[in-house]
């Protein structure tokens, strides 16, 4: 019996020894290297117009090119901070016409040249309702894209505005018309191309084992320069903690976002990893439904009152909450914004933390603790509300408990309803909530987020709180339209955000810093805050730092 157990154990050790002996191949020099990204998400499909997944974007960045890409400043106004990609150059032909010249060296991975017809085809696809692209709305101000000749694409806008260039280049990855023209548009969401894509970027698709891994290989003939790292492999994991375990155990090389202080500490202790901080692209807040729970036509009995909302905002010590949850890995946002936005400015006017003033305002509006049960009431109604929290977000669940405690000290009762994300989204969309802890990830442009979430045009869409202020809407219209310099736009945005802060439809709680972890053997690392791996083609692994997996030939 014990002999059998000993034999089994020895067999396991033998298997482990045999399997752990990697077979180093012959690759040496500057163009070796295998990077293993551990990814808590897996693409649904690698066809950029039909997927909003972050992992689709990360992998798509390597396979498909944009006409031009945003620069390190992430400035979205004008075109001076953008860098050429598929287009070798561009010029303005009048105030609303932009002409792109496609780089004649660009080739699809099947050898076909990339042409202006591909650019026109791509816009048509993104704009086709049958494709149901989530990016279609972002292109609403582009009137048309046509091919003047095989190398010249002409973009015409419906109007002149500060982010015309951003809209023209940022949302669309150019697609191969010769491979996709025959696929019916209403079948793109499940197209076979999306599981075996052919692109024009620095890396070509090799294989995808669903639920496990996906591999890309460097295109040694890439027209913007041969990528130094030969193989990119994504290992898919169910969540960030498991991904961190893989990094610490040496089974992965890179993870874009570590999230919590615990994860950062674990990775910091792993000697082979280096941390790279960057400006985070998300923010979170406690949003108040300004209309009755389930009836968007009536003002909410508590949150319909602007002064009460302001008092609740002043009752919350946001800095203390932030330290409790994130340590020093986040900032208190000065309004509805992520650190990624170029309009980020801690000097924007906000309501102060002042519990005395908060209590005074509540009392002056009739909310007093008349029955001495610790909770304020008015005309028989308690100052009590429910907050919706997605059960999958550890950060927001922590915040809910801490907020509950802070509100209790000023006589406000907050009940926590933890629900699945799909239920959260459904109830938020239908207005069936009192308050909710929201978190949003943004692209580099303040325009789309601030319009969708806070203006009247977002009613029925993502303005779940039904915040409605004509002054704010006018300021947003001015900031997103007309001809403004960057400084004029910044001032206008600032006024718009201060308008929101004054109205207090939400308490803006956190804007996390981004922290990526990348193996120390990788040199020239540059993590772009809006799209972490967009510049991987410029990274390299010096020959003297290669490890076994860098040399492996398959």
């Amino acid at each position: 019996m014990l002999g059998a157990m000993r034999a089994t154990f020895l067999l396991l050790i033998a298997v482990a020894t045999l399997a752990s002996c990697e077979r180093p191949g012959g690759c040496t020099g500057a163009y070796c290297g295998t990077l293993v990204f551990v990814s808590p998400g897996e693409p649904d499909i690698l066809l950029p117009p039909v997927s909003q997944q972050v992992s689709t974007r990360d992998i798509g960045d390597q396979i498909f090119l944009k006409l031009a890409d945003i620069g390190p400043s992430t400035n979205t106004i004008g075109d001076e901070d953008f860098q050429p990609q598929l287009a070798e150059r561009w010029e303005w032909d009048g105030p609303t016409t932009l002409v792109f010249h496609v780089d004649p060296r660009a080739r699809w991975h099947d050898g076909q040249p990339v042409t202006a017809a591909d650019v026109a085809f791509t816009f048509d696809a993104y704009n086709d309702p049958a494709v149901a692209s989530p990016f279609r709305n972002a292109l609403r101000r582009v009137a048309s894209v046509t091919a003047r000749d095989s190398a010249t694409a002409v973009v015409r806008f419906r109007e002149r505005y500060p982010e015309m260039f951003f809209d023209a280049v940022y949302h669309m990855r150019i697609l191969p018309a010769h491979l996709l023209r025959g696929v019916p548009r209403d079948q793109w969401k499940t197209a076979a191309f999306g599981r075996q894509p052919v692109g024009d970027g620095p890396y070509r698709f090799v294989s995808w084992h669903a639920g496990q891994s996906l591999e890309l290989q460097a295109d040694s003939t890439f027209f913007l320069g041969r990528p130094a790292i030969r193989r990119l492999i994504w290992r898919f994991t169910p969540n960030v903690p498991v991904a961190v375990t893989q990094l610490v155990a040496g089974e992965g090389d890179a993870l874009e976002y570590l999230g919590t202080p615990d994860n950062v500490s674990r990775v910091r202790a792993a000697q082979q990893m280096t941390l790279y901080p960057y400006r985070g692209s998300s923010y979170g807040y406690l949003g108040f439904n300004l209309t009755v729970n389930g009836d968007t036509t009536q003002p909410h009995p508590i949150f319909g009152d602007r002064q009460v909302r302001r008092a609740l905002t002043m009752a919350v010590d946001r800095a203390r909450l932030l330290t409790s949850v994130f340590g020093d890995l986040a900032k208190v946002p000065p309004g509805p914004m992520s650190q990624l936005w170029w309009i980020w400015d801690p000097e924007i006017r906000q309501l102060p933390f002042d519990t005395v003033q908060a209590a005074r305002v509540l009392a002056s509006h009739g909310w007093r603790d008349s029955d001495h049960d610790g909770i304020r009431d008015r005309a028989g109604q308690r100052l009590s509300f429910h907050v919706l929290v997605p059960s999958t977000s550890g950060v927001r669940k922590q915040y809910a408990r801490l907020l509950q405690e802070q509100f209790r000290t000023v006589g406000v009762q907050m009940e926590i309803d933890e629900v699945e994300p799909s239920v959260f989204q459904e109830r938020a969309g239908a207005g069936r909530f009192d308050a909710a802890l929201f978190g949003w990830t943004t692209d580099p442009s303040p325009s789309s987020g601030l319009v969708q979430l806070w203006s009247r045009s977002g009613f029925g869409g993502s303005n779940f709180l039904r915040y409605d202020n004509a002054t704010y809407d006018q300021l947003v219209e001015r900031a997103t339209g007309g001809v403004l310099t960057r400084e004029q736009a910044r001032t206008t945005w600032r006024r718009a955000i201060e308008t929101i802060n004054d109205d207090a439809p939400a308490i803006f709680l956190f804007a996390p810093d981004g922290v990526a972890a990348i193996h120390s053997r990788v040199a020239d690392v540059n993590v772009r805050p809006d799209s972490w791996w967009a510049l991987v083609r410029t990274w390299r692994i010096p020959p003297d730092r290669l490890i076994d997996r860098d040399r492996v030939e398959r």
Partner: protein
Amino acid sequence: MAAWLVRRVAASIAIVLAVVTLTFVLVHLAPGTPFLPPPETPADPAVTARLRAQFHLDEPIPVQYIAYLGQLARGNLGLSFALRRPVADALAEAVPNTLLLAGAALLLDFLLGLALGVYQALRVHRLPDIILGNATLFIYSFPTFWLGLILVLVFGEWLRWFPVAGVGDPVLCPAADSLRCVIDRLWHLTLPALTLGLVGAAGTARFQRAAMLEVAGQDYIRTARAKGARERRVVLRHQLRNALLSFITRFGLAFPFLLTGAVLIETIFAWPGMGRLATDAILRRDYPVVTAAALLASTLVVLGNLLADVLLAVADPRLRVPAHA
């Protein structure tokens, strides 16, 4: 026997159909909505409406159900909303992973558990029995996920003897297409299978020890010894065979686990099996995958029970149904 088998199979089909129907209706009526954008991304109602129409979710549930049954009759499980591909393809990738993990775990569970249980019963109240009894109780008390985390920490992070996640090394062996890669799969299988198998084996050992001791006091065992049968024959032929009846029932109940998987262990070890597929589908309201998973699981439960009944009949002639029944 044949008539009994036909009746059982017909009842089994009815049960599976009932489960599928119930799952289909409940998952459609449950709160929550499919076609969500990724977390923390605003949804575009126009896109959601378009996708709902393209997947026929804007039609009444009875219409959708009839269409689904029509598809099912043709062997088509539909298209996954979230994975953007045929459900059958997703199952074809997840099922082998789960079979491998659960198969290895069950093998370890039953072989080790059976051996330990018999060994303990033959040395009842002696030192090996006491030590093993306490050890199995100790392991059996572990929450499985906790044991998994400990094994990851010790053998994965600290000692680096075994990989901490995944079914294979994506650098060397993205597919099991060579002997070396098959060994790599076994290497990756070690920790998750040990996690599931050890806890199961501890339970089986305690179960089997009790069954062996219960049988040991029976008259026929005493008779066998009185007739002068050798101890080995008494144990294997009379004691173990009779003590196996409850073991077979337990095996039948464990059979569905082969395909439904172990969600927590699949999550801890990033093992892409049925458990994770079904859980993700439920969270994302991916109706076709949820219904297909229920179809598979119910089929396995029914088959497991059927198999257990047949095995019991083989092991114990008294349970065989008379020809005229």
